[in-house]
């Protein structure tokens, strides 16, 4: 366990949960799974009500002005927590890597942005790297494969952490996804601006997923998951799509993404 | 204003300067050019002369270069004749003039020898090398009156006479040797680094040898370490 993790162990950490707009609006069960996991790790969790979005849509569309305004609000809302944790690699990376550059021209805001960046983590890597978690309490029965969402992988270096936790779950058979590090074609507004190209890319991802024989595919970002689920359902594939937090927390009672109550 | 002045002017403005770099900066830049230093060199190239030779042969094999070892210069004609008959080639070669002192006629009178720059009908070119680069199994050649560079490219087959003692670890080591012999700040007209026979994968990524350059690259390696090559006489 590293020094930071040891420090984390010695006091109860107060986490500000950055829910993310997709989790808040489309799949709250991911948020509750995140809360459960953070509690399992010995943290207390606060969910500021005034949060909405990390500003990534505006930022990636070139609307730097709106991105800054939204980011400023996030700086205020999450100023007091020990750590800020998001069940999303792309939102966490937005705060961690891009917020400081948004305020590069304002020394005071840049400092606050860097301070927030230093305290912000993606969920699974927070549990392993800061809390020192080596296994979760839940078990899971089935054959699971894992897709590496691009931001989490390339901006935050998340690759081993979810695999370690999944591999330690009794009953969970983890199979490698060939091309796990290849984009799923979501890319935020890309998938609606260039839908046919996006569909081509996600079709390849679906083929790779089906080739593993897994009954479940997991990832750490809801945008990717909704994109992959949407395509798998369209082609009639019998694969359950969930956020990795749901499986790690043992909270898989709700229908999987894109699956209904029937 | 000349094209040069316009470009340099725009360039300097973009870099936020009124003119050329300041004197102190210029001195540093001059020093960098007059005493070139290697950057990071892979450890792979370290080792003894025997290590370098082994590495060279291993790497050359990986890029489809064949190597035959012989004891001395006088064994070269026989080695070349063997190469020709192995590949059903006529016993006729064009050599770099620097190799004319090899005892071709005495050792292998059946070989027809011509010398000089390549002609379009040549099937086999035989040249010396300036050095072998162990790191990648690469041959280095330099052009000159005794070493026409066209012999490396026009004939279908390229045979290179290399002494084991010419093998250096890295390209950087070869530059040092060349500067020492040729003078710094200048090069022969053509310096070639050759790593295997010509090839292309332009058709559906399928590898085909002999695209425009030689389809075969063969090295006759002489075991002597300290003996001089004809080029150094």
């Amino acid at each position: 366990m590293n020094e930071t993790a040891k420090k984390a162990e010695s006091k109860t950490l107060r986490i500000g949960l950055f829910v993310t707009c997709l989790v808040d609006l489309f799949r709250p069960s991911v948020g509750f799974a995140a809360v459960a996991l953070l509690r399992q790790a010995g943290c207390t969790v606060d969910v500021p009500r005034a949060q909405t979005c990390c500003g990534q849509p505006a930022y990636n569309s070139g609307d730097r002005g709106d991105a800054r305004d939204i980011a400023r609000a996030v700086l205020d809302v999450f100023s007091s927590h020990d750590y800020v944790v998001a069940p999303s690699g792309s939102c966490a990376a937005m705060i961690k890597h891009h917020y400081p550059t948004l305020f590069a021209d304002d020394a005071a805001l840049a400092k606050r942005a860097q301070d927030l960046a230093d305290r912000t983590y993606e969920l699974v890597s927070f549990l392993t790297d800061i809390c020192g978690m080596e296994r979760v309490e839940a078990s899971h029965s089935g054959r699971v494969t894992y897709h590496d969402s691009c931001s989490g992988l390339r901006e935050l270096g998340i690759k081993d952490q979810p695999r370690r936790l999944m591999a330690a779950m009794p009953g969970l058979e983890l199979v490698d996804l060939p091309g796990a590090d290849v984009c799923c074609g979501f890319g935020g507004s890309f998938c609606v601006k260039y839908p046919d190209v996006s569909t081509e890319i996600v079709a390849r991802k679906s083929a790779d997923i089906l080739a593993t024989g897994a009954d479940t595919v997991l990832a750490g970002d809801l945008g990717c998951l909704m994109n992959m689920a949407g395509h798998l359902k369209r082609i009639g594939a019998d694969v359950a799509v969930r956020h990795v937090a749901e499986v790690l927390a043992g909270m898989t009672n709700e229908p999987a993404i894109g699956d209904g109550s029937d | 204003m000349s094209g040069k002045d316009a470009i340099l002017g725009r360039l300097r403005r973009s870099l936020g300067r009124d003119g050329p770099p300041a004197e102190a900066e210029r001195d540093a830049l001059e020093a960098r050019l007059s005493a070139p230093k290697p950057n990071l060199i892979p450890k792979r190239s370290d080792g003894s002369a025997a290590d370098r030779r082994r590495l060279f042969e291993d790497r050359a094999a990986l890029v489809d270069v064949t190597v035959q070892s012989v004891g001395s210069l006088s064994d070269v004609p026989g080695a070349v004749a063997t190469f020709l008959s192995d590949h059903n080639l006529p016993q006729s070669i064009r050599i770099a003039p620097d190799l004319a002192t090899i005892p071709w006629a005495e050792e292998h009178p059946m070989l027809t020898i011509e010398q000089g720059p390549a002609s379009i009908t040549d099937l086999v070119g035989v040249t010396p090398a300036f050095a072998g680069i162990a790191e990648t199994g690469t041959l280095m050649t330099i052009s000159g009156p005794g070493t026409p560079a066209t012999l490396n490219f026009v004939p279908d087959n390229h045979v290179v006479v290399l002494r084991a003692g010419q093998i250096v670890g890295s390209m950087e080591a070869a530059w040092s040797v060349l500067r020492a012999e040729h003078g710094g700040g200048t090069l022969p007209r053509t310096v070639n680094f050759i790593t295997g026979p010509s090839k292309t994968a332009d058709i559906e990524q399928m590898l085909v040898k002999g695209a425009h350059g030689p389809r075969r690259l063969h090295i006759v390696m002489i075991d002597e370490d300290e003996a001089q090559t004809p080029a150094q006489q």
Partner: protein
Amino acid sequence: MQPTAHAFKDNAKKALADQPLRQAMKRIEVGFTTARTAAAAGLPEFDALRGAARDIKNHVLENLDFYLERFEAKVEDAGGHVHWCTTAADARDVIAEICREVDAKTVTKGKSMIAEEVALNPFLEAHGIQPIETDLGEYIIQLADEPPSHIIGPAVHKTKDQISDLFQEHHRAYGKTERLEEPEALVAEAREILRQKYFDADVGITGANFLIAETGSTVIVTNEGNGDLTQLLPRVHVVIASLEKVVPTLEDASTILRVLARSATGQEMSVYTTFSTGPRRAEDDHGPEAFHVVLLDNGRTDMLGTPLQDLLRCIRCGACMNHCPVYHAVGGHAYGWVYPGPIGAAIDPHFIGLEEARDLPNASTFCGRCEEVCPMHIPLPSILRHWRERAFERGVTPPAERHGIRLWAFFAKRPALYRLITGLTIAVMARLGRRRGRFNRLPLAAGWTAGRDFPAPQGRTFQDQWASGRR
């Protein structure tokens, strides 16, 4: 080349329906990525060398004037000439003039992206000079009258069948009647036909991977040896290169060479790496009698001191496009100008304008794989984002998109209103979608639902449930 970048969406649509192209792109996707990974793994110092290469180039760019002037002085010492060309037209004029001076009829060409950038071939043809592409890929697309679709493998989009057809059609003029199927036979026929042309050419034109300030040398890197036959046999050797290609010393070139071939094709060294310095020496009996270097600016001096400066570190290895999911899906021609893939999306707007190239920086998921594999650590996604910001500022972004983004931001900055509106919308969607769990059609989401279903929301938002006490 007339840009068709403005038609990216149409180009992409056609490409997605082009079965031979799809086959060809699948081959590249697997081949190049696997090769690069293996090459990187085979050299422990690979990542350190990438950092060293980036540092060399950054140093050069900060002192580009010094190194270019030194390069010119050394070329002249060796008996060559340097021509400084601000525009593409200047470069074309200079080269045409050099050819006219020796009454050139045919000109052999090694592969050069800069020659493509200045559209050299049509210009030479218009002046009664026949350019002959010698790189096999370039030769193939010259027959097909198409632009290159990849910066190191210009004909990667062609299948073997298409190449067989092209050869059968165009080699009739040489008395060839047979339709060849085997790659070895196709290559052999091209080799045979080009052989005499190498010897007959009056001028040989190559590009340059590097310009060496220390010695006034130009460097080409090939696997075929065509560049060497081009630069050795004719009376005149012309090198056309953009000015950021200069490096200080031979050692600096050696460092960058270690990451170039590995990043491009997975080879440790390309078969031929050639350093050319000036014309033949007085004592030589082979080699060109004249040596000209045409240095092209074409907007590069304007990139210095801007967020685009990092693009000038590019060594044209092609690793970015080899790893790009968008490039894999649509191929190089869809990008509609000289440079495809991530580097094209980053640099084409500078050359052809943001209005023309607007789709290119937008047709990216920002997956970041390009930056991850770039040997020169060029921050490609950041540069694409830079173009999106310029487009937004200038009103080049389509109104619907702009309004959508601003509307979302409007709500995101007003949490109470956000909760209200989104709560209502989500409740409706959840009710409609509860049974099936997804929509195959959704108003305002036709782009998404064309190719996939849209998962239904679960129901009450997280914030709503949390506020009600669910923990």
